[in-house]
């Protein structure tokens, strides 16, 4: 089966080639890929005319002819730069493909599978069929990923299994031999069977040298009473682009906790959709974005309360310097019958420059009558009163600014309970103190 990809923006040029290079697989997968690409075709590449892309200029993608990334030119690109401590189980992807030599997966407990997606498809395609046959709706880039992925990560924990240590997924991207603009499409899947518990640190790390577009689709399936803590660290190179769609289904009394730290990239677009479809399902969504230059970060989140007694706690923060831009669209939909829903969505932004901008839209759509829902969005600057107060105690102006910016961001770091990671993030937060904070 084939799908045709009509040429539109420059970035479409490499798509036919990418499709031709897709590895052979079972018939059902070929059909799923074609269906996904057809879905992309129907929607077209996102433009500012689309409601959900209105504030996010995609020139960084649309104006560049990306080609499928080869192996990194330099071996071990990004090695040693990961924020996440090394003592965890580790699976490494380089330019969208599994690196066996860099992955450390010996010693996984019984009942735990951690594999590259290509490998998993070769081993047991039928186990994946129910998941990979689905085509994500309303997400054009996720549809592209579903059509064009070569690899990704597959994690499965059997019933009641608890991981001894977190799993670290490192996705590194670096210039290949062509040193031209390169792209990688990935598809990953995390399945926790009932009662299983895991911590997964997903870290995306870009090396400078050429524009790199990493486009990923991740699905998370949480069975009854299971719990996933999902830490996501993101540091692209300054010309790097990342589009990422995460689709999560949370079962009865299961818990999904997400912590997203965005620490760099020309354009970062993240779509997170969480469906709470079992009674008492719970999700916590935390986010912190630290931006400078002309970086654009866009978070679109949608939490759908579909069953009784679900809870959502969402707080995203952004610190914006220079000409950066942050977009937050956080919708919580409470479906009919989702009584006793208890949901909160907040977005707080700190502007350090007059040229930085924020579009924030925390929102509810409620179709049930016995619910507690709170939301709020704020955009502020460093408080002159607080700055003067600190200076009046002998603390220099630059240090006072850094202290206040750090205090704003550290709230999100403090929520990370995984201690070595929290320490690394605190250091990263300090290291990424905005330039404007140096004015003294």
């Amino acid at each position: 089966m084939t799908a045709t990809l009509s040429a539109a923006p420059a970035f479409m040029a490499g798509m036919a080639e990418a499709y031709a290079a897709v590895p052979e697989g079972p018939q059902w997968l070929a059909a799923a890929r074609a269906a996904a690409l057809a879905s992309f075709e129907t929607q077209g590449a996102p433009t500012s005319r689309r409601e959900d892309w209105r504030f996010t200029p995609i020139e960084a993608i649309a104006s560049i002819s990306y080609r499928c990334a080869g192996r990194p030119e330099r071996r071990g690109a990004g090695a040693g730069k990961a924020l996440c401590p090394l003592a965890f189980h580790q699976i490494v992807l380089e330019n969208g493909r599994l690196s066996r030599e860099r992955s450390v997966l010996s010693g996984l407990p019984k009942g735990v599978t951690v594999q590259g997606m290509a490998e998993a498809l070769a081993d047991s395609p039928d186990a994946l069929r129910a998941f990979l046959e689905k085509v994500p709706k309303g997400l054009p880039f996720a549809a592209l990923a579903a059509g064009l992925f070569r690899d990704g990560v597959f994690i499965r924990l059997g019933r009641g299994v608890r991981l001894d240590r977190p799993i670290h997924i490192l996705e590194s991207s670096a210039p290949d031999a062509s040193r031209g603009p390169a792209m990688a499409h990935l598809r990953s899947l995390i399945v926790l069977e009932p009662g299983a518990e895991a911590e997964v640190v997903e870290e995306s790390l870009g090396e400078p040298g050429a524009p790199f577009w990493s486009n990923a689709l991740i699905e998370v399936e949480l069975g009854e009473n299971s719990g996933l803590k999902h830490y996501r660290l993101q540091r692209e190179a300054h010309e790097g682009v990342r589009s990422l769609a995460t689709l999560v289904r949370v079962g009865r009394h299961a818990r999904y906790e997400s912590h997203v730290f965005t620490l760099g990239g020309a354009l970062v677009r993240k779509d997170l959709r969480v469906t709470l479809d079992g009674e008492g399902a719970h999700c916590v969504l935390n986010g912190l974005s630290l931006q400078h230059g002309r970086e654009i970060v866009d978070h679109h989140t949608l939490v759908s309360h579909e069953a009784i007694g679900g809870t959502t706690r969402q707080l995203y923060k952004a610190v914006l310097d220079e000409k950066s831009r942050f977009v937050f669209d956080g919708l919580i939909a409470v479906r009919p019958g989702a009584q006793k829903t208890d949901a909160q969505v907040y977005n707080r932004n700190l502007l350090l420059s007059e040229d930085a901008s924020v579009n924030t839209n925390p929102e509810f759509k409620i179709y049930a009558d016995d619910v507690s829902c709170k939301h709020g969005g704020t955009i502020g600057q460093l408080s002159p009163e607080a700055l003067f107060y600190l200076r009046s105690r002998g603390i220099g102006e630059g240090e006072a600014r850094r202290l206040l910016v750090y205090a704003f961001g550290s709230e999100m770091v403090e929520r990370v309970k995984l201690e070595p990671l929290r320490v690394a993030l605190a250091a990263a937060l300090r290291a990424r103190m905005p330039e404007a904070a140096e004015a003294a």
Partner: protein
Amino acid sequence: MLKIKGLHATVGGKAILKGLDLEVKAGAVHAIMGPNGSGKSTLSYVLAGREGYAVTEGSATYQGADLLAMAPEVRAREGVFLAFQYPVEIPGVSNKYFLKAAYNAQRKHRGEPEMDAGAFLKFIKEKAKLVEMDPSFLNRSVNEGFSGGEKKRNEILQLAVLEPKLALLDETDSGLDIDALKIVANGINKLRHPARAVVLVTHYQRLLDYIVPDFVHVLSGGRIVKSGGKELALQLEKEGYGWIEDQSGTARVTV
């Protein structure tokens, strides 16, 4: 220690201080009293270096140097301390960390080694006793969620830690019940020292029952219009500010 001569200052283009003179010597406690709008808080902020307070004329000399030319943090490191009328809440910065940063900035300025975290913790726990503050407040964010009295006590704790040469206390008694007032006054009295000067800015005489000043000045219309000993405060308490203003020829202000 502090010599203010003919000080004029404007806030948002409006003249507030109009030729203020004041001299403060080491070891003395001065009280500056005056009705609302007389320029008391403006004087405090001008001396501490707050933005938006423009000095248009006159001078303030501190230990022989031009105080007004110094950045706020330099004034603080040189030993000037302002206890705020409305202390600022700073979420996310622990009181302990804040105090340590302030203390070490001062030590560094003097060319002394910084104090490490362990030694500092011991040091501030002792200081906290002075203002009868529960040590748990040291771990909380600066002033966040503190009651009015707790905020004022926290100001005095900072005063005790930084041991300034010149302490300016802006309406430190406002919003305090009598017990809190005693604790705060007691904290200040313990810090009285021959090498330290204290300037209390206050509307009411009440605080002066607990901290007995050496000098009392009346600020009205942006100038010191009368100076005297502690008995002047009692007279003001009895008779209000009206007679002072009539005498000085400025417009009468009701209090």
